[in-house]
């Protein structure tokens, strides 16, 4: 029997803007394969040489898909902008929700804004100019590339990029989305298509020859840089052809897991996404983003490493990270630098470079958008001043964006003067992980802590035995999270163990500071006759 139809009368209703397709793409761009490849390919493959990258990709997709069942069920029952903050503050406590989502994720976006802009300067533009100078025999371009490596130049460039992006954002979402749709997405996709084409048609020997000629422009001439780097890595003790290792596979998995979890970060915008009241759609959006991500990382990282030579990639990453000065004339120019010299073709190098820049510019926007959603939600809850939740005529929270840009600029200056604080970024992953653990805990307690809300949600009908599926999926996610934490605390590669004590304390200080702010705000609002705790509590139905 066909289920009967329903009858809807003419009444007003909520309209959401981002289609599931746009939302999935937004999620993909929040992480984007190019960022993963740029930051993680070389160190990841060098320090987990026994990992099977293709297996890592499959594991990520499978494990995340299960974890996201819990996440999607929360999304579909509370489809409000602010995502993790909303879940934790409503299902755990207001102070926990604020302190861990802002102190564990939001604040670090301002940090990432600097890191990303800095990566554009030193990881893309610098090698791009050097490559162009080399390909066109123009020494002044090579010098321009080298000049960008100067920390002060890179910092100034970073600050300019941060403020340019802020300017775009204050003109409203439309300006940004137009750029995303017509510039950022096409450039990112074209980059991957070009890369795949290069891997298919250009023989590795061409890369080896071109790589040597490129490295030679930096002064130290070597007839075969490719093999010189491999030999040097071996001399430094690297194991470049180890057998398959589950430990290394999970080690690399943990590294990529930290990045991939940021697909959840895109869901801070759930209040603007269509169809997320259905848990299947919410899950589909995250899975779609993950599938795009895994596909792009498989092309760039797995296929790319196979193409360039796994032994060489491991060696390059190892020498660069362990002792770059041990090989005279060795000059690290990152993954973009490696890919762009495969052909030494100027248009291809420029398009790839623009694709790389497009990806990193995307990070600038996404970081601010997600963090602004936390600020909105906390401002509505009266934890933050109301001006932080106010928007201009174009719907952009100008004051919040300017506040973000100021903080990111200060971070750029601090990082330039004290380069060692860049190591804090290792701790950022840990802080984010703790936040996501608390989101999983929120999912586990959901059916009991907000009984009525849960019963009204589309996910409540899914059970295994008598246990709600959300609890099982969240427990599974929690186990994965604890494996990640275990790696962080037992393997020095992740930087948690090796960071200086002040760096280790910094995330704790930020989170404790957020708790202090919360209780300060509560005290202040109490004086006004307002109990901010009431914003988080479900009223028991009569």
């Amino acid at each position: 029997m066909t289920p009967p139809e329903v009858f809807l009368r003419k009444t007003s209703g909520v309209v959401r803007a981002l289609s599931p397709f746009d939302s999935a793409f937004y999620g993909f761009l929040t992480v984007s394969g190019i960022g993963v490849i740029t930051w993680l390919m070389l160190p990841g493959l060098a320090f987990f040489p026994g990992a099977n990258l293709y297996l890592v990709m499959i594991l990520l997709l499978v494990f995340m898909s299960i974890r996201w069942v819990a996440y999607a069920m929360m999304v579909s029952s509370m489809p409000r902008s602010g995502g993790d903050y909303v879940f934790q503050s409503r299902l755990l406590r207001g102070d926990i929700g604020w302190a861990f989502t802002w102190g564990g994720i939001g604040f670090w976006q301002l940090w990432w804004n600097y890191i990303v802009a800095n990566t554009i300067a030193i990881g893309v533009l610098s090698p791009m100019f050097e490559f162009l100078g080399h390909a066109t025999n123009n020494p002044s371009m090579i010098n321009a590339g080298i000049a960008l490596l100067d920390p002060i130049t890179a910092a100034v460039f970073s600050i300019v990029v941060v403020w340019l992006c802020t300017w775009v954002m204050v003109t409203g979402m439309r300006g940004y989305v137009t750029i995303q749709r017509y510039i950022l997405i096409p450039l990112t996709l074209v980059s991957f298509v070009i890369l795949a084409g290069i891997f298919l048609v250009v023989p590795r020997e061409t890369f080896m020859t071109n790589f040597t000629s490129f490295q030679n422009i930096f002064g130290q001439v070597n007839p075969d840089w490719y093999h010189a780097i491999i030999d040097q890595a071996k001399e430094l003790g690297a194991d470049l052809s180890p057998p398959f290792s589950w430990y290394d596979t999970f080690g690399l998995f943990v590294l990529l897991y930290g990045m991939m979890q940021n697909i959840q970060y895109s869901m801070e915008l759930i209040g603007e996404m269509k169809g997320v009241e259905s848990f299947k759609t919410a899950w589909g959006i995250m899975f779609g983003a993950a599938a795009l991500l895994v596909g792009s990382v498989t092309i760039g990282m797995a296929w790319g490493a196979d193409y360039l030579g796994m032994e060489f990639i491991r060696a390059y990453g190892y020498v660069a990270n362990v002792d770059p000065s041990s090989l005279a004339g060795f000059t690290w120019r990152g993954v973009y630098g490696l890919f762009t010299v495969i052909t030494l073709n100027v248009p291809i190098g420029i398009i790839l470079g623009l694709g790389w820049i497009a990806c990193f510019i995307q990070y600038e926007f996404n970081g601010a958008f997600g963090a602004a959603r936390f600020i909105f939600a906390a401002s509505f809850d009266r934890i933050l001043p109301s001006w932080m939740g106010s928007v201009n005529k174009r719907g952009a929270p100008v004051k919040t964006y300017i506040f973000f840009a100021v903080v990111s600029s200060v971070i750029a200056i601090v990082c330039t003067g004290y380069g060692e604080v860049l190591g804090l970024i290792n701790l950022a992953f840990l802080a984010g992980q703790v936040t996501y653990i608390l989101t999983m805990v929120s999912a586990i307690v959901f059916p009991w802590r907000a009984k009525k809300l849960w019963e009204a949600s589309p996910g409540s009908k899914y059970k295994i035995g008598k246990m709600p599926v959300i609890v099982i999926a969240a427990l599974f996610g929690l186990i994965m999270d604890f494996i990640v934490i275990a790696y962080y605390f037992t393997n020095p590669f992740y930087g948690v163990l090796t960071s200086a004590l002040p760096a280790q304390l910094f995330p704790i200080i930020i989170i404790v500071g957020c708790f202090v702010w919360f209780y300060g705000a509560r005290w202040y609002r109490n004086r006004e006759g307002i109990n901010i705790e009431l914003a988080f509590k479900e009223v028991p139905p009569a």
Partner: protein
Amino acid sequence: MDRRKDQSGGTEFGKEKRFTKIFFATDAHGSEVTFRKFLSAGKYYQADVVMLCGDLTGKMLVPIVRRSDGGYVSRLFGQEQKAETELQLKAMEEKIADAGYYSYRTEEDGAQELRADPEKTDKTLKKLMLERLERWVRSAEEHYKDSGIRCIMTGGNDDPLEIESILNSSGCIMNSDGRVVRIDDDHEMITVGHANITPWKCPRDVTEEKLEEMIENVASKVEDIETCVFNLHAPPKDSKIDTAFKLDDSIYPPRLVKEAGQPVLVGVGSSAARKAIEKYQPQLGLHGHIHESRGVAKIGRTLCVNPGSEYGEGVLRGAIVNVSKAKVLSYQLTSG
């Protein structure tokens, strides 16, 4: 008005303060669980006045069809739902009611009849809407009678005019629509549940001119406009608490308008409401209508609040506003 400390024990700058605590919610749209939360809200938030204003009735009729084998089947959230036992059937009906919809037990023939006869569907839906509202009013009477909490319930642009007689039938629950009422010793309140015309052409959609006239009629009767509360279902135009996506209403259902591939955000509030607030500068504006545009805005000296609505998720969105004779002391948006 009470002379007391607020529930958190707070005092204003060290002195005991005098204020009225208003709890304002809107756009419940027939959701049973949201309404039952509203019943608890007065005590829970320790309010002096509770208001559920605008769009009390739901939007959808959900037939539950009896199968030949004795079981029942319906469609909810786009998915087929089955009930084999009376207990499961009750749970299904409860779920439908919590979402703000109206369940209707019928046979296969009855469902076909509804499909074929829109007039019968409308009649059935209206009957169920009025029945539920009648029950709500009686429950509210029970809860708020002798509680010391004043309870106000009014309709909005989505509500048929037939609900007025039900709202007016209570001696305890106040229907303030189209009138000046006192919410405490110091504050009068005017209410207009009608709204400017929407793409859905709802029962109480009127032109801006008509709306201006309606507001003007009631505002002109206020004794002390400076302490007055304007409870206008439609928020003031371009106030940032009226932001929604622009829709093309030349077709039904209305379609999202996109420019350069992007949905266009516009202020869809009422210019008549804005004009009235700018002209009279009341102490407080209480609004609803645009569920997704929850927030607070200042227009001159007037604080305008739209608590938004999430009735479909069973969430009681509301606003607590503490008002003294002189000013709005503080506010808090809630998601209960």
